[in-house]
């Protein structure tokens, strides 16, 4: 029998984050093996597209990313059902996405951004739409929605380039995420030099805070 539990998510502790953007870079790196991105910066032929964003205010910096809402509003508004719940994560099927931006507007955290789609490191052109570019009509680049997927299928992407992706700590050998606290964690959390990012597993987290609250009484 399957045990129901809330989705996990990654959260940042603003007091710890120093704003280095290593998490953004790592996120981009592990999600673009198909775009030829291997271990070295020199293998990158496309813009860095992260799925979490380090924001800066006068008093703090911290990354913001998808909370993997239980009743995900983005999924509710997607007209083509590109947003699904899979193995404890809310993910976007990038092939289905039509770039309508409804999800970006529905997300209360601003966790979704729209950006050009890439395949094999090149802009992915559309078959039908064209636009004026440098005085010529050219095929328009596809634009799709990107957001955190908890690195849920990174292992199956396979980093054959360096044979190293497990070392990035994103996933365990079977390719699925394990609970926070000890096991492998998403790429952003594994590279953060300040340990500002944690994979929160709510069933565990909730009881712990309840206990803490009780002790304070």
């Amino acid at each position, binding site marked *: 029998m399957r045990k129901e539990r809330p989705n996990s998510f990654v959260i940042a502790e603003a007091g710890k984050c*120093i*704003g*280095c*953007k*290593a998490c*953004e*870079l*790592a996120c*981009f*790196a*592990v999600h673009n093996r198909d775009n*030829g*991105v*291997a*271990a*070295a*910066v*020199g*293998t*990158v*032929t*496309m*813009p*860095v597209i992260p799925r979490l964003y*380090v924001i*800066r205010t006068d008093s703090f*910096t911290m990354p913001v990313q998808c909370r993997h809402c239980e009743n995900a509003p983005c999924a509710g508004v997607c007209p083509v059902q590109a947003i699904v719940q899979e193995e404890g994560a809310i993910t976007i099927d990038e092939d289905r996405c039509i770039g309508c931006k409804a999800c970006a507007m529905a997300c209360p955290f601003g966790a979704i951004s729209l950006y050009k789609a890439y395949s094999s490191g090149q802009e992915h052109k559309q078959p039908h739409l064209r636009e004026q570019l440098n005085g010529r009509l050219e095929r328009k680049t596809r634009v799709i929605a990107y957001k955190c997927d908890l690195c849920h299928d990174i292992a199956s992407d396979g980093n054959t*380039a*360096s*044979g*190293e992706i497990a*070392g*990035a*700590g994103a996933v365990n050998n079977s390719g699925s995420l394990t609970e926070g606290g000890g096991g492998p964690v998403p*790429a952003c959390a*594994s*590279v953060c*030099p300040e340990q500002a990012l944690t994979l929160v597993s709510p069933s565990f987290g909730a009881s712990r805070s309840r206990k803490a609250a009780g002790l304070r009484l």
Partner: protein
Amino acid sequence: MTPNIDPIIHIDEELCTGCRRCAEVCPVDAIIGEASTPQSIDAHRCVVCGQCVQTCAAYAAENDPSLTSRAEKLRQRGQLSSVREPLFAAYSTGHAIELKEALADPKRYKVVQCAPVIRVSLAEEFGLPFGTLTPGKMAAALRLLNFDRVYDTNFGADVTIMEEGSELISRVMSGERLPMFTSCCPAWVKHAETAAPHVLDHLSSCKSPMQMVGSLVKTYSAELDGIAPADILSVAVMPCTCKKFEAGREEMNVDGLREVDMVITTRELAQLIKDKGIDFINLPDETFDSPLGKYSGAGTIFGATGGVMEAAIRTGYELVTHEPIPNLQLDFIRGDEGIRTATVQIGDLELKVAMVAGLKYVSTILEQVAKGTCPYHFIEVMACPEGCVSGGGQPKLLLETQRKSAYQARKSSIYRHDSNQKVRKSHENPAIIKLYKDFLGEPLGHASHHLLHTKFFSRSVKGEMK
């Protein structure tokens, strides 16, 4: 040609987030600024090692309208307009644009040398696994880039061993100016000149392998090829940003000509190869040119920490004892960041040696030397954490978590390359034997002195005021 005054290492104020991770890896505290504000570099202290460049993760977001355009940034950084990788806050001045122009000049005789560790890391820039060994493809690519002669810094490493090994033996015999420090790491040399001028007398007077090759290119090989030295463009491909600084040092010239006219990094070589549309991965192997392209295994291991020491001992042992060294693989000398020490029995002599990897570890030894209590005869210092495999011009990693395994793989690849060489000792390299027979005479002789040795100058602020 290499600009002398350019500080080489820069931080782009527009991109720096002030996280100060660079300051954490800087071995000489040269990075100044408040957290959360853009940092700057104290060019006087900075040893140009480029470790900050390797660490910085603050990149230019593509669609940020507040930033100077990418094209303009590339131009300011001296990088080819075809470069597609992200641009980071900390960077080193590039020389690929200048080199590309010079390579198109039919009037110049274009000679290149490559450091030992380029061949174990270059392939990473094309997506191959860490430490993939590609000397043959590298030589082929350099010919396609229009170089007339493809030489090897490994040859210079073999020459260095001949000179430095002889120097060590003569110093140990006479008991003078001990301990002797290696002088092939320019970042270490700059640090000694800036922060510890009291040890300058203790540095080996040898130029680095790169400068030795540069010097021989404009004399020995020019003569062999019948080329006027002034027509030669001497280029070096290095894992190290500080080699750009070293090549520009005033005293690094032979009879008024620069020994090395231009230095590019591993990353810049990859960018030039991509710019020319060369299919690096599928290039058939080619060999280096003779004679400055023939090297021994000892020359190869210069790229790893402990390598200079190991190579020197292989030759020094035999020079002193006139017997073959019983064990070629001096594993007790191999390792990584920190200080390692060992005692090597050479005939009657108990040679005490130390290897320092990572400039931040050198201070205790410098204090010992000042106090006269330093117990070692010979000390190798490499500024970067694991020697040249971890140099500031080497492929930069997207994931910090892969750093250890990248360095490990590059290092074992170097050692594998050594153990596959037929000749593993510098003094048995036939091209080296011929060089001494035909041209240099003997190690530390007159010609060597003129071409291969140098002096160091105090750069300490006090010294400057005098």
